[in-house]
Every structure is written in structure tokens, then in C-alpha cells.
């Protein structure tokens, strides 16, 4: 788009400026956008940061590093990392299978991959709990093997895997669709085995997308609440996620404590958001090069 517009703008300096004037509504659309953004997002968000400024550093630090809160970070971040890693492996395979192979019911499967985006988290929470409880459809077989899922940290991983499932599939899928098969064919005709072709040719081209999907799934999982609280069991120090701690502090009217933990989570999400933006820029650059 921009490269097409460039020659015109150097040849005819005046028309190049025109679009800004021809198309109306800049002031009102941007004005409304900023007003609505400030009202719904920025002002409420600033309330969280201003609330913590009423706390002393010592209190803040003591709250966000207390034993129970630390245990919740370990669970929230640990389980989110494991779930995102599971999704990188299996989501990657699902994306590969959906792009490269034909099998009956493929379109139906493809459409259902987005189910975790569309299914309310509370519904996901109760149904996963029912399935993985010791008498549930899946839980009874795992119980025979001595594995307990529901009401343990393992249950948290299951719920977060469900929630993060579409992210990796949907970021890797378009990259695989665009990938140049000729490179793989060239690699094969030069005598590389299919494993070598995969590791040397395919994997490097989808790595940025896999990492982006991982980061998106991880970011979503750390803040997740609805699907987790049913299956986690919510035992302090064992299976209590950080968002739940914020809620329990709120229920005890400890607004400052709840806000302090929220600030830690917000700072973490902002760092992650920055990382995701960089990863996406990398994905685009990779895509543009090939």
C-alpha cells in the first residue's frame, strides 16, 4: 500500500496531502475513541495504581511477598507455563495437521478449536471438574493409575491448557499456510530426511509464531479465574491462584492488599504485552522475508 502511494507523493506533492482533508470525521472519531478509552480503561486503571500509592513501600512489599501470596505466584505462573508449553507441543501438531493433511470432519474440528474462546469460563470450569473428579468420565481412569487431577495443582494445569488451546493453533496456522512448500521440497530433493527437513526448514519458520502463541496462552492463563476456581480446590498454599487471592482480600475488605497484588500482576502483564508485541513484529518480519 505505502510503496504504491510513494511515487505519487513525490511527483505530485499536493494530492498526496489531500486524503487527510478529503475524508471527514478525523476529529470526531479520534476524539470519541480517546474519550471512551479514557473513561472505560485509563481512568479505572489509574485508580489501581493510585490506590497503592496510599500504601507505604514496606507495607506494599510485605503484602506482595507474604508466604501465601508467594505460593500463589508459584502456582499461577508455574501452572500457566506448563499449560502454555503443553499447548505449544499439541497446538503445534493440531495446526500442522489442519493445514497439511486431509481427513474426514476436518472443517468441523477446525471450527471447534475456538471453543475455549467462545465457551464461558465458568462452564469450562464446572465441566472440567466433573470430568476429572475421581468419579468423572476421565478422572476415574486416572484415579486407577493413582493420579488425582481435580482439586490439585494438576487440575489448574488442565483448566489453563483448555483456556490457552486456541492461541498456539491460531497463530501457527496462518504461518504454515503461507510457508513455501518449495523450500521443503528442495530440502527433500537434496537428500534431507523428513525429520531433518522439519528441524532445519519448517521449525525455524514457525518458531516466532510458536513463541507468540506460547506468550499469548501464558498471558491469558496467568489472569484466568473462572475456569480455575472450580477445579483447583483453592487450598491456601497449595492450589490457590493469584486472582483468587485478590478476591479473598476484597471479601475481607482489605482493598489495599488486593490492590497491591493486582499491581504486581498488572506490571507483569504489561511486560508480557511488550514481549508479545516484539514477538509479533518478529513474526511479521520473518513472514515478509520469505
Amino acid at each position, binding site marked *: 500500500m505505502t510503496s504504491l502511494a510513494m511515487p505519487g507523493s513525490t511527483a505530485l506533492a499536493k494530492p498526496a496531502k489531500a486524503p487527510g482533508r*478529503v475524508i471527514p470525521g478525523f476529529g470526531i472519531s479520534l476524539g470519541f475513541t480517546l474519550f471512551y478509552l479514557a473513561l472505560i*480503561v485509563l481512568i479505572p486503571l489509574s485508580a489501581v495504581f493510585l490506590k497503592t500509592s496510599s500504601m507505604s513501600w514496606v507495607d506494599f512489599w510485605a503484602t506482595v511477598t507474604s508466604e501465601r501470596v508467594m505460593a500463589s505466584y508459584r502456582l499461577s505462573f508455574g501452572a500457566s507455563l506448563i499449560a502454555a508449553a503443553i499447548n505449544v507441543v499439541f497446538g503445534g501438531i493440531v495446526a500442522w495437521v489442519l493445514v497439511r493433511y486431509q481427513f474426514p470432519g476436518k472443517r468441523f474440528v477446525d471450527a*471447534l478449536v*475456538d471453543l475455549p474462546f*467462545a465457551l464461558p469460563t465458568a462452564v469450562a470450569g*464446572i465441566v472440567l471438574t466433573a470430568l476429572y473428579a475421581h468419579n468423572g468420565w476421565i478422572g476415574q481412569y486416572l484415579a486407577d493409575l493413582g493420579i488425582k487431577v481435580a482439586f490439585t495443582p494438576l487440575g489448574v494445569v488442565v483448566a489453563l491448557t483448555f483456556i490457552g488451546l486456541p492461541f498456539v493453533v491460531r497463530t501457527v496456522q496462518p504461518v504454515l499456510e503461507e510457508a513455501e512448500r518449495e523450500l521443503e521440497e528442495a530440502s527433500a530433493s537434496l537428500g534431507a530426511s*523428513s525429520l531433518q527437513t522439519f528441524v532445519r526448514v519448517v521449525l525455524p519458520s514457525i518458531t516466532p509464531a510458536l513463541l507468540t502463541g506460547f506468550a499469548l496462552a501464558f*498471558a491469558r492463563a496467568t489472569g484466568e479465574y473462572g475456569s480455575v476456581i*472450580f477445579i483447583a480446590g483453592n487450598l491456601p498454599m497449595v492450589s490457590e491462584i493469584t486472582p483468587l487471592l485478590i478476591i479473598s482480600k476484597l471479601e475481607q475488605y482489605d482493598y489495599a492488599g488486593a490492590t497491591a497484588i493486582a499491581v504486581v500482576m498488572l506490571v507483569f502483564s504489561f511486560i508480557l504485552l511488550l514481549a508479545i508485541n516484539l514477538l509479533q513484529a518478529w513474526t511479521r518480519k520473518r513472514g515478509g522475508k520469505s
Partner: protein
Amino acid sequence: MSADKLAPAHLPATSRRLDTNVLEPRWVRYTLIAVALVFLTLFLFVPLAAVFTEALRKGWGVYAEAIVDPDALSAIRLTLIAAAISVPLNLVFGVAAAWAIAKFEFRGKSILLTLIDLPFSISPVIAGLMYVLLFGASGWFGPWLEEHDIKILFAVPGIVLATVFITFPFVARELIPLMQQQGTEEEEAALVLGASGWSTFWRVTIPNIKWGLLYGVILCNARAMGEFGAVSVVSGHIRGETNTMPLHVEILYNEYNFTAAFAVASLLALLALVTLAIKSFIEWRLHQARSASLDAPH
């Protein structure tokens, strides 16, 4: 019509291409398909089937009873109200933001884009907390609201606000890339030919973005009706008054009334399925439109 004629000639070619292009041995292919399907079965298909099985475990009578229960009906009503307010608000915002970002150049655009995406990366619980800090009894506006006898927190306005926040980026996010890709030529042509700004918007821009718009709206709506964490913080859980459907599911579940909980949950699962069906339909339409425009030169 012309696409129909072209199809038979194209099909054998593409299927042959696919066969020769699969480089890996057959057993690798089948193993990967099997792994993918087992994973999806465990995490998607079985849970989806289980929602409906659990809901109908005690028969249709009990199912219907759970849904026509006055508390359930009031939860359904509140969920519909929250979505009916938040979706149009975010729709208007999405169109305005996409118009400003896609049709004009200005400084700080990338910051604006990041800020619009912000609600996606904030935990729903924190979204709820923000409104407690603003409108709660000890919040910024709490005392003033109390003086004027306005209830926001633990009432319908709080639920709507939390829903608006959670679903804030959905429409904007779909429209911005779409409108950026379409550029400004068609609008400029209409304006140069003498159309007013408004009629250009309605007759040129809206027809061009209608599928993207619908796509954003159904995703926004699904999330608005299903939001749990943020709404749970601001609702106050007053039965029959400030309970949305997902909160009603939680209450029933915590009372060990599993069948009723799954009955209400099955309505939400149906909503999810309808959303996915419409979404696939739109994607199919867009795909058709794209391949039609690719076939046109033939």
C-alpha cells in the same frame, strides 16, 4: 457460476499437488493426525459433550425446570441486558477507532493500538477490582454516589461497566486491520463524486466492512454473555437481582445442584456453538469472496 465451471478443472490438480507435497511417510502422517485428534477429544469434544449429558442426566423435565426457575430467568434477563448495552457501545467505539486509525495518519498510533488491546491482557478479576476502587463505599466516587443515592457497585450498572471493559477491544480489533487493508481510495472516490461524509460511510465503508463488523460483534457478544471473573467481583451475588447466567451457574454448582447448574451452563454452551457456527460461516463467506476476486481475471 464461473467458479462452478472452473472447479472440476482445478480439483484434480490440487489434490494431486497435496499428495505429492506430503513428504513425510504415511505412518508419521497418521500418527500426527491421531495425536491431534486425541488431544482435541480430551480437551474439547469430551467436555462439550459432557455439558449436555450432565444437563440432561435427570431428563428433560428437570432440565426445563432448572431453566424456567425464576432465579434462572432473572439471570438470563440480566445477561441479555448487559450484552444489549455493552455490545452496541463497543460497536460504536470499534467503528470510530477503526475509522480514525485506518483512514488517517497521526502520531502515537501504535501506542493507541496497544492501549486498545490492554483489556485483553488484564485479569478479569483486576477489571472488577478497578470498579470497586472507583465506586465502592470507600472508593473515589463512593461517598458522592451514596449522597445522591445512586447504586453502581453490586447493581446492574456495575455489571454493565465490567462487561464493557472486558469486551472493549473485540470490534475494534477486527475492524482496524480490515479497514487499514482496504485503504481510503473508495471513500475518496465517493467524496470526490460529491457524496456527503455520512452517505459515504453508510454506502461505501459499511458494505465493505459488514462481515468484519459482524465477526467482531458475535465474538464481543459471546464474551459479554459469558464473562465471569470481572462480573463476579462487582455483582454482589444477589440472587434474582444481580446474578448473570455464569454467576447463577456458580451458585447452583456450589449448592451441589449439579444438574441445574449444567442445565443453565448448557444454554451458554449452545450460545458458544452458535457463535462458532456464525464465525465459521463468515470465514467461509470471506474465503469465497477472496477466491472469487482471485478467479475474476481468468
